[in-house]
Each structure stands twice: as structure tokens, then as C-alpha cells.
């Protein structure tokens, strides 16, 4: 993107400056939350989030339910508007526009342009029940990216092949298993070629025996590397294996972050220690 807004004062990321200096990614962050809060009525679910993600970085977000993890991801997808603070995407403000010296809420046109960089996979799949698998995956490339039917189908078929569903093109979502539905949803998000993808507890609604096939697909995508990923998850082992960095959130704040080793082997805060303990005790 062309217009890079350079914010003065980097206090947002003061605590973890070292983490951003990953080798080979010393350029602009692809995502940057600054002082982001979110209230629903009287309840403040996010109490000031500062976070940066570098291009291609895989960030896992863990934490107890109700910690605001999902809200964080939904803001990046423009499904939830921040109450305070700003989010930048590829160096450009996501939810705001600068008019003279003031920040104003972005209009739909701006949001539409910015959303082109982001994709999302939902906990409950949200496949379109009135379209078959192929149409689920080709609809947006045709209507939003303006691809021809042939181009869109070519792209979709290769993506569906990648998630192992090339033989299900003509089926309707109601005839698929949960794991298959989620893989279609992943393909549907991937064909839009986003720079950042939010995975919002994508295995939480699945039967235990179907979790593996979905994680396998995500692992493959992660290995390809170019796309930044925000993995909001309860799968600790998976987070450990895939993430470049793990963020632990609780009560609307980022309590601790670090490499998977730091977070899982050497937790600093009491909150994280007890969270991990409880998790291990449950054997999940």
C-alpha cells in the first residue's frame, strides 16, 4: 500500500520491542493495534490492546474464555468497531480516516478497500447453505475480485484440492461433516488471497475426532509462510507447534507474550501459570 502513516512515539510496543525484530522482517508491521478498547454497553471486554504482527508472522492468541480474544480478531475483520484506539493494517488506518488533522470513522468505501487484506475463518464455519461447495468458494472471487467464472473456478478447484475436498465440489454444506465444512471455509477465505488471516477458534465447534484434519490443513498453510496468521485457539499443542509468537490474554489485556518456548516452558505471570496448569490438569 502506498500511504504509510507513520505514527510518532512507539510506546505502544515498548514492552516487546525485541520480539518485533525477527530476522528478515524489519519492515512495516502488517497489523498494529494501539490502545484498543472495546465496550459492549457497560462491560469493557478489551481494556487497552497494543499488538503488532509482522508480514508472514504466525501469532497464536490463547487465554480463558471471555478474555476478549475473539473480539480482537473480529475487530481486524471489521466485524466489531473499536471503542477507543486505532488499528493499522499494512501501515494504513483500518477503522479511521484522517480528515485534516482529525481521525474520523472510516466510511464503507474505505472499509471495503481495507478488508481486501484480511480474511477470516469462523468457529461455526458460516458456509452459505444455499450454495454448493464450489459456489461457496467462487462466489466472492467473482463478485468481489471480479474474476471470470473460469478463473474463479480454476482457483477454487485448486484450493479445494489443497484442503482435500476436490471430490465434494457439487455437494451442499448440509451434507458435509464439521471438519469438511471447516476446510471448505478455509478454502473460501484463502482464495481471496488476504495478507492476514484470522482463525477464530476454528476447531472449537468440531467433534474431537475431526479436529486433526482441520489442524493439518492449517499447518500446511502456515508452512507456505507468506500470509500472516492470527490463531485464536484453545489447542495449546498446536499453538506451540505453529506459532512464531504466543500471546496470552486475560480480562481484556495482553498479560504476557513471547515465543512458544517462553510462554509454555517458562511462564512469568501468575495468571498464565495457573491457566496452563488448569489446562494440563484437564488434559485437553
Amino acid at each position: 500500500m502506498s500511504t504509510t502513516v507513520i505514527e510518532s512515539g512507539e510506546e505502544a510496543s515498548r514492552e516487546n520491542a525485541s520480539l518485533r525484530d525477527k530476522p528478515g522482517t524489519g519492515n512495516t508491521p502488517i497489523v498494529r493495534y494501539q490502545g484498543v478498547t472495546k465496550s459492549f454497553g457497560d462491560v469493557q471486554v478489551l481494556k487497552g490492546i497494543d499488538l503488532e504482527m509482522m508480514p508472514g508472522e504466525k501469532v497464536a492468541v490463547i487465554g480463558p474464555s471471555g478474555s476478549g480474544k475473539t473480539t480482537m480478531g473480529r475487530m481486524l475483520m471489521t466485524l466489531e468497531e473499536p471503542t477507543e484506539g486505532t488499528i493499522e493494517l499494512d501501515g494504513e488506518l483500518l477503522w479511521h480516516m484522517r480528515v485534516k488533522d482529525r481521525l474520523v470513522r472510516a466510511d464503507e468505501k474505505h472499509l471495503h478497500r481495507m478488508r481486501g487484506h484480511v480474511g477470516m475463518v469462523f468457529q461455526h464455519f458460516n458456509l452459505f447453505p444455499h450454495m454448493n461447495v464450489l459456489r461457496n468458494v467462487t462466489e466472492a472471487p467473482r463478485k468481489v475480485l471480479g474474476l471470470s467464472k473460469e478463473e474463479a473456478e480454476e482457483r477454487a478447484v485448486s484450493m479445494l484440492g489443497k484442503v482435500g475436498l476436490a471430490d465434494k465440489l457439487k455437494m451442499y454444506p448440509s451434507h458435509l461433516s464439521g471438519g469438511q465444512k471447516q476446510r471448505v471455509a478455509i478454502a473460501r477465505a484463502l482464495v481471496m488471497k488476504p495478507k492476514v488471516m484470522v482463525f477464530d477458534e476454528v476447531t472449537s465447534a468440531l467433534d474431537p475426532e475431526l479436529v486433526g484434519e482441520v489442524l493439518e490443513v492449517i499447518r500446511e498453510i502456515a508452512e507456505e509462510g507468506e500470509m500472516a496468521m492470527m490463531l485464536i485457539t484453545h489447542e495449546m499443542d498446536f499453538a506451540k507447534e505453529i506459532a512464531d509468537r504466543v500471546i496470552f490474554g486475560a480480562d481484556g489485556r495482553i498479560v504476557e507474550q513471547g515465543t512458544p518456548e517462553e510462554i509454555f516452558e517458562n511462564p512469568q505471570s501468575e495468571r498464565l501459570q495457573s491457566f496452563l496448569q488448569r489446562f494440563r490438569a484437564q488434559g485437553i
Partner: protein
Amino acid sequence: MPSSWIEFLPTLLKGAEITVIVALLSAVLAIVAAFIAGLGRLSKLWIVRTVMAVYVEVFRGTSLLVQLFWLYFALPFIGIELPKMAAAVLAIGLNFGAYGSEIVRSAILAVPKGQWEAAVALNMKPWQRMWNIILPQASLRMLPPFGNQLVELIKSTSLVYFITMADLTYQAMVLRNNYISWTTEILVLLLLMYFVMATLVSVGVKLLERKLTAGRL
């Protein structure tokens, strides 16, 4: 004097033709009005919401027959003279459109929120979300209640008798006036003809519903 009830049929069928035409035109107007008002009531603009809410309340709050009388007999006093057909179609269409708008509105609201969110996540524009994702799903939900409304609409076309339009009911009542002793035969025949029309429509809608949902839900 007629020798058999069969002799009433040609006259009644002539009336049935008018009934069908009124029903078809009103149904088209009703569906258009239902979508405009139903979507309008979900608009972000309060002025649009208010105008649509007033339309719906006025047409649901007064009787169809009063509306018909008003359009046909009262409007000429402020300089608007409508032909019978226009008054009939406007009254029935707008009346059922008001009821239908509730069907449209609640069917749209019944589509799970996740469908809107998925459409946003795929960067569809607001009208694309509505047109490509929400409406196709909502339409399936609308079909059964619209089918019921269509049956009600066919029944309600009998009210055009009051503005002396030569529909099925009117023709039957003219026949009755001429052959009083055949009153029962004529009225039973009349009831049966309406019953057949209404049943055909409700069966048709059910078949359509089955066809559209086949293999999907």
C-alpha cells in the same frame, strides 16, 4: 329457466377470469410492496423506516374493504378517479403488501448473524451481502407464509364485488338474482370454485417449496 347447474358454469367462469386477473396483479404488487417495505423497515435511515412503518400500520390497521371503498368512492372527491381494476389491485396489493412486509422482515432477521459476517469477511459490498447471501436464504423461509397469504389474497378478491366489478362472486350474485330458486346450487358452486383455486395455489406453493429445498437443508 336453466335445466341444470351446468348452465351456470360459462357465466361463472367468465367471472373467475376476472378474479384470477385481479389476484395475479394484486399478488405482484403485494410482493413488490412487501419487499420494499420489509427492507425499508430495516434501513439505516430513520426517515425510510418511519415512512414504511406508517404505511404498514395504516394498511394493517384499517380494513381491506374500507381501503377499497376509500380508493374507489372517496378519492374522486379530491380529484383522483381510479378505474375499478386499478382501485381493486391497489387496495388488495397494498393491503397484503403491508402484511407481507412483516414476513420479509422477520425472514431476513432469521438468517443467522454468521451469514452476514461471512459475507463481510469475504469483502462483499452491503448490497451484495443482501442480494447474494441473505435474500436467497430468507426467501426460502418466506415461501410458506407467502403461500398462506396468497390463499388469503385469493379469498379477499371477492370483495371487489362491493365496487361492482364483474368477478366470480358478482357474477354468481347476478345469477342468483335471476334464478332465486337456484340460490343454493349457485352458492355451493361458487364456494367450490374458490376452494379449487385456493387449494391449487397452496399445493403449488408446497411443491415449489419442496423443489427449492431439495438436497440443501
